[in-house]
């Protein structure tokens, strides 16, 4: 078996050798295989004659370790940029111009307590009317909006007072209408 393998290997090595032996030493079977090999070689040479031309490498070969470092640097740069943008956004939101400057919590508590003492439900006063007392607007437009809101609240309070004054008159007229309806005149 091993002899057969060696014989086949030698036969194929001779049949497919690059140097063509023309001394007629090939047996018939090997010569037949050689014909197929030569025909294939001629066809390959005709179809692609650039067999021995050197290959031009398109891009410089770079070591993979350097590429890894570059990727790591890009990732670190992107991460630091993300952190920076996030911190800057928070700082801008915290210091945005036009935000109402409120008083401290201690003074706010005092005002709420004082308003609670002055609050009289019978007089029809609304707690919301004191809103402008403890909120200072540093934007003129916001200040105007607050003034308009105060006027609306005041008008609402006046209307409630007028409505309260006419209430007994309305109830008296309704009683008179009921008596007239019930009387058998």
């Amino acid at each position, binding site marked *: 078996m091993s002899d057969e*393998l060696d014989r*086949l*290997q030698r036969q*194929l*090595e001779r*049949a*497919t050798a*690059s140097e063509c032996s023309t001394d007629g030493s090939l047996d018939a079977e090997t010569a*037949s*295989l050689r*014909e*197929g*090999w030569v*025909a*294939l*070689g001629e*066809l*390959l040479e*005709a*179809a*692609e*004659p*650039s*067999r*021995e*031309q*050197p*290959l*031009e*490498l*398109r*891009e410089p*070969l770079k*070591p*993979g370790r350097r590429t890894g470092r570059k990727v790591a640097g890009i990732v670190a740069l992107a991460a630091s940029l993300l952190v920076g943008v996030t911190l800057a956004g928070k700082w801008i939101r915290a210091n945005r111009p036009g935000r109402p400057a409120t008083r401290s919590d201690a003074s706010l508590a005092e005002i709420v307590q004082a308003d609670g003492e002055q609050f009289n439900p019978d007089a029809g006063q609304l707690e919301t009317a004191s809103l402008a007392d403890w909120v200072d607007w540093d934007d003129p437009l916001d200040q105007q909006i607050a003034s308009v809101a105060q006027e609306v609240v005041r008008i609402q309070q006046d209307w409630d007072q007028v409505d309260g004054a006419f209430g007994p008159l309305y109830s008296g007229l309704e009683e008179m209408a009921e008596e007239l309806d019930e009387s058998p005149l």
Partner: protein
Amino acid sequence: MTTDFAPCRNKPWPSALKTIGETPLRRRADQNDRFATWAREHGGAVRGYLMAMVRRPDVADDLAQEVFCRAWQARGRYREQGNARAYLLRIADRLVCDRRRKAGRELTLDEEAWKQIEPVSRAAEPSGAPIQAEAADRLAAALDRLSPVQRRVLLLRYYGELSFGEIAQIIDCPLNTALSHCRRGLIAMRKLLVESPL
């Protein structure tokens, strides 16, 4: 008072420089020289093998670049064993097999199905070469008659001039199987190209 570092400090400068400078820089220069030699001596064979296997010049060029890129990336593991062409053709063969596997193609496609899926590109061929184009057509028709393994064995033998033992290693089969594929392929080529030319 003498410290442990005294012998190193007292080392003569030329000797110290020689020790420092010989290892990485010299090795890098050797690797660059080796790759320049490989591209010059084996680039054409690698590209020819790839061209015969994929039959598209643009794909063959890309794969040839990839072969040398892979070889460069693995240069630290490469051990000189005397046949760089076999090493490069092994990478090329694996790239071709991977490409076909990724594309989901079966290797038992007949000629018409193969041409429908991946027609031979004429765009990248040099103009004014009708004889070459005709030879390419005949070659494609002849190679299509071979089984994929027969094709690999014959083309590795032709372009790489590899021994059959090296070819058996590349295609991952026993030596007698590689020899059998070669013999059958040669018989098929003779019938196709000599007895009844296309």
